[in-house]
């Protein structure tokens, strides 16, 4: 008979407040095969673990069930404790009494009875558990970083500086991301490009970093320590090994009116272009959608201009494969455009801008060289209105969350405007001012008190154009709802930060979770903010949720440390949750009949054919065999097997069956 030890945790009061833990321990103690059952305030604490270790030795336990929090939280903790006491760790299971019971039910008889059932299920399961050995796999010590904004740059540099190789993939022709578009940064007002460009250059020159710009991830296969990434290098149409970056082709390109992405649509660029003067790499690509040659088959002026013959018209996209051990996702965010706002003119008014467009106006490298001028007529706006929460905190528009960065950048915008237009009047319509951060509140106060920005608490109902002015219909809710109408020359919307386009598809390629707004999901909201649910894939920056530069940089360094920690091992220990095909004594050898349904079901090509031969070497039959290095343990093969010959360790038919039956057989 089994000798199972059961340990019920109070979790402080998290479990014991609604579940009668003593009764659980008492009733389970009376179950057949249970040798020892206790309850304790904190099973995960040092004394709690010591109870388990001592009980394993004292009672010679051959199985342990801990009734506590979610196994996703503490399964490794308790398995380690068992291993330390000499019990095979895979003979330890957890019953989820907190997330699945005490936190979701009121204190009642039923709640305690459910808790008893949950523990019982695992006791029955553990009786069928078999000792397993963990699987060791090698680690490829090279990281893939996706996205070359400040998050990707920081993560790449930090990993590279620990001595490991990094592949950095950027979708655009240059790294730099949104930070390169910003004018000055809050709360210090230092120039964004001045602090960013040195890091961009460092990335380009770092011996451990291989940079692929104008490239996208095509697919990712494998698992932690052993990923295989296919990367699409989009055709740049320019040979970078010969191109000197002289820029003559750009001067001569006749297609000059393409809205510049870097200038958020406020300036123009050519068809062969470098996104901005400080780009890394500082070499052009041809935008084939807009190029005369690709559109109409004639032009080639750039080719004639190029002294070194670098134009490659027939270049095609190339797909390369890189083997990496870890992935850092740093794909950033995007902002909603002005066309998202019916009440502010559906984007049809030229002088209604997004915050990002205002950054370009305020930036010395922008289309107006840092002067604040109206896109419509080039005039300096004397009255300007900033509208905070444009689209954010707006469930009607499908964005209920706070975009977090807008309060601060709006204060910065108003401040920059007042510094540049001394006789100007600026008004900020806001709902709340969220300025949590070092020196942030002080920064906002400075805007209000020293730079005389007029802060009005209320949302703007509509904006319309009349006689070259923008009529802003707002309200001052602090005056009991007094309507405020401003005839403005320019309106800046602090538009909501949203997930970058394509993030959903990317998440699906990588099998990481994402939230309803397509931001990537962290593994735990508090304790695992840079991990994803998929081992070996980490998050950095605004692809997880809108965040500002310091937070992004901190998170990127955090992700880099996780990667470095992973790379500090030569081998990884993997859970032995893999499929196995049964092997029996001759003359049966296996119940597998060799139908290979499992092979068709397997997403990892982990099923191999094995010839079973008799003593005389003659072929008895073909049978399936699982390559444990490739198997990821999904178990789809098990459901497909008609002869019940394949099973998955840790979730065998026998174990699952025992679990279910424990609920029903009374």
């Amino acid at each position, binding site marked *: 008979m089994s000798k199972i030890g059961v340990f019920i945790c109070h979790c402080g009061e998290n479990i014991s407040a609604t579940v009668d833990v003593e009764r659980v321990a008492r009733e389970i103690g009376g179950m057949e095969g249970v040798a020892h059952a206790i309850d304790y305030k904190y099973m995960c604490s040092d004394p709690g673990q010591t109870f388990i270790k001592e009980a394993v030795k004292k009672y010679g336990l051959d199985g342990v069930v801990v009734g506590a929090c979610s196994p996703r939280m503490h399964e490794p903790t308790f398995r380690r404790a068992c291993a330390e006491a000499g019990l095979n760790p895979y003979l330890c299971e957890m019953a989820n009494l907190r997330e699945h019971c005490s936190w*979701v039910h009121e204190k009642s008889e039923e709640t305690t009875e459910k808790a008893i059932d949950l523990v019982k299920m695992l006791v029955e399961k553990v009786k069928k558990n078999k000792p397993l050995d963990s699987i060791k796999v090698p680690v490829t010590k090279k990281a893939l970083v996706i996205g070359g904004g400040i998050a990707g740059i920081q993560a790449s540099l930090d990993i590279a500086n620990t001595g490991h190789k990094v592949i950095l993939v950027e979708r655009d022709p240059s790294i730099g991301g949104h930070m390169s578009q910003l004018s000055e940064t809050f709360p210090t007002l230092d120039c964004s490009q001045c602090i960013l460009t040195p890091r961009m250059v460092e990335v380009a020159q770092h011996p451990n970093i291989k940079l692929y710009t104008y490239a996208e991830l095509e697919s990712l296969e494998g698992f932690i320590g052993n990923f295989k990434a296919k990367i699409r290098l989009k055709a740049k149409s320019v040979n970078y090994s010969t191109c000197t970056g002289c820029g003559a082709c750009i001067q001569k390109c006749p297609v000059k009116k393409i809205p510049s992405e870097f200038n958020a649509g406020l300036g123009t660029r050519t068809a062969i272009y470098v996104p901005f003067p400080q780009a890394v790499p500082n070499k052009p690509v041809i935008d084939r959608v807009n190029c005369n040659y690709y559109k109409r088959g004639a032009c080639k002026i750039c080719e004639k201009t190029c002294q070194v013959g670098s134009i490659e018209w027939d270049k095609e996209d190339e797909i390369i494969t890189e083997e990496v051990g870890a992935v850092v996702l740093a794909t950033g965010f995007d902002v909603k455009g002005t066309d998202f706002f019916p009440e502010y003119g559906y984007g049809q008014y030229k002088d209604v801008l997004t915050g990002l467009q205002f950054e370009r106006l305020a930036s010395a490298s922008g289309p107006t060289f840092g002067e604040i001028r109206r896109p419509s007529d080039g005039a300096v706006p004397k009255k300007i209105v900033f509208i905070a929460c444009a689209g954010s905190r707006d469930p009607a528009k499908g964005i209920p969350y706070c975009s977090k960065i807008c309060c601060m950048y709006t204060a910065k915008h108003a401040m920059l405007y007042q510094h540049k237009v001394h006789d100007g009047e600026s008004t900020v319509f806001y709902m709340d001012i969220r300025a949590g951060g070092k020196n942030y509140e002080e920064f906002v106060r400075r805007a209000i008190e020293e730079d005389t920005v007029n802060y009005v608490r209320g949302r703007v109902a509509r904006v319309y154009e009349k006689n070259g002015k923008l009529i802003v219909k707002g309200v001052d809710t602090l005056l009991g709802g007094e309507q405020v109408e401003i005839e403005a020359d320019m309106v800046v919307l602090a538009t909501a930060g949203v997930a970058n386009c394509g993030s959903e598809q990317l998440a699906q390629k990588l099998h990481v979770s994402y939230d309803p707004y397509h931001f990537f999901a962290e593994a735990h909201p508090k304790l695992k903010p840079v991990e994803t649910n998929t081992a070996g894939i980490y998050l950095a920056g605004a692809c997880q949720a809108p965040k500002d530069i310091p937070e992004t940089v901190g998170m990127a360094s955090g992700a880099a440390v996780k990667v470095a920690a992973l790379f500090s091992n030569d081998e990884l220990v993997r859970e032995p949750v893999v499929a196995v095909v049964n092997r029996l004594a001759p003359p049966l050898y296996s119940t597998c009949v060799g139908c290979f349904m499992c092979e068709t*079901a397997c997403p990892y090509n982990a099923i191999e054919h094995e010839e079973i031969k008799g003593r005389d070497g003659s072929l008895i039959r073909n049978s399936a065999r699982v390559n444990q290095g490739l198997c990821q343990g*999904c178990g789809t093969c098990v*459901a497909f097997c008609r002869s019940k010959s394949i099973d998955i360790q840790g979730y065998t038919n026998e174990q*699952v069956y025992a679990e*279910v039956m424990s609920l029903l057989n009374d």
Partner: protein
Amino acid sequence: MSSNTDFEPKIIAFVCNWCTYAGADLTGTSRLKYATNVKIVRFPCTGRIDFLLLLKSFAQGADGVIVSGCHPNDCHYTSGNFHARRRWIAFRSVLDLMGVDIRRIQYSWVSAAEGSKWADLVNNTVADIRALGPYAEYQKVADYLEKEGYNEEA
């Protein structure tokens, strides 16, 4: 419809580890309340779920079953949930044939971010099964399984 206010149905949820189990964890972290009738059995993936096990559950007296995993395209293992869905479609007709009301099986997708969806799924299923009443025809299923020689204990 008869009133079954005293009837507490026994419902077993077969869920995947990556999406729905984590989603149900989130329900807990968010302290959303739901009925106590449902007990979760954790699987690596809905692709692992053998529908004969569901039959076995009914044969042994379950009143209802929930199967829930990742949304289409979001499977941790690429395609396990698709296999499960395809198998479920085939399996439905078998159930029908054997006299199991398919309304007793709730097939759903709950992601790791959908804590409130899990609470709703549980509460709705409990209400539905309670309205259907206790499952009484289990002997039919038991006989069928015996005939097919499906016996896990062996």
